[in-house]
């Protein structure tokens, strides 16, 4: 009798463990997956809003509050423009599928003479161009240039 009970408990535990692992892995979509097609041109999350009243946008001051500043950092420029104009002005090479060319963005150009620690490593004499969505204040893009010191 004891043996039967023990066997039953072990079986239940084994099935539960298997089911738990299977359940955990079932949340992951297999790759590549015949039922899921790549979307090569997804609709932008940030849609056109260049006709919107400027008063509906997050203020420049509020955006700047969210930027990392140091004792030596200096804001070089602040602009409100469309994403399309930003891409043209900065000669952006790649393509960002998140944002419509007619979405308004705030572009803040900031200089870090003492350098900036980035995920890529340390940039001496760094200049960062940060692009924020004007309507939500969300960060869209950030580019750092300067004297790269190598991977950290």
């Amino acid at each position: 009798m004891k043996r039967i009970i023990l066997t039953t408990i072990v079986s239940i535990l084994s099935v539960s463990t298997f089911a738990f692992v299977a359940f955990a892995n079932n949340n992951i979509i297999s790759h590549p997956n015949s039922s899921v097609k790549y979307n090569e041109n997804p609709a932008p999350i940030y849609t056109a809003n260049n006709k919107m009243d400027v008063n509906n946008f997050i203020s420049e001051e509020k955006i700047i509050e969210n930027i990392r500043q140091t004792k030596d950092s200096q804001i070089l420029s602040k602009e409100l423009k469309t994403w399309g104009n930003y891409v043209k002005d900065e000669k952006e090479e790649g393509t960002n599928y998140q944002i419509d060319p007619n979405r308004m963005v705030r572009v803040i150009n900031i200089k870090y003479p003492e350098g900036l620690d980035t995920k890529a490593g340390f940039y001496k004499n760094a200049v960062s161009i940060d692009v924020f969505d004007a309507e939500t204040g969300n960060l869209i893009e950030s580019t750092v240039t300067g004297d790269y010191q190598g991977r950290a």
Partner: protein
Amino acid sequence: MAERNIKKKVMTVMGTIILLFDFNSVASATPLNPHGYAEQTLTLTNYGGYFASAYASSNLNSNWSSTNNSRFITNELWQRFTDANEWIEVGDVDGVLNSAYWNGHYTAYQKYNSSTFQYEYHEYTVGTKSPTGTHNFEIQYTGNSSPWSSYVDYNKAYDFTLTNTSSPSIDVGIETNDSAATFTNNIYDTGMQRKDSVNSWHNWTSTNVINNDYNSLGWTSLFNTTTDRITFSHP
């Protein structure tokens, strides 16, 4: 009166304990140079990489704040190139992206600009802030005019102009730049794959995978081919 004095003393002791605790937590947090990594590396020539995570960026905590605004922690895939200072990234982050805060998916690249004779590092947020649930991340060589692309949940996020035609290795793991950062213990990435030259995907096998943990925090990554997971742990 005596009761009030006792209350006052208790409050003072409690306040001191709180202050000491707070001081210690701040004092013990230090920027990491070099950064800390818990990651696994696939050392095979490839044309793309893939991984999935059931753990959203809410499982990463950089302890970023307006006064500690240089901290970050990521869980991501790095597509490496022959110039070790050029690469593409995709994954999740909590903390600073160059100079402003983000919690969620992101993609990034660093490349040498032959016009300015300088490297430049670009980071892009993907999707909305603080996503939850399971997500998959991949980078692929497409051979198009912008020959590399990153995808999140099968949606193209960014086309990159890096001209490399293949990649010597892929890293998957966690990175931070501050000892105050942490993550939910035993979270894992799964389904790691590489793409070959004829666009077929292959699971990672242990043969060409090496551990690249490098940190002073006791963080570890463990690749298990049976469960097809990289599990991350900390003390």
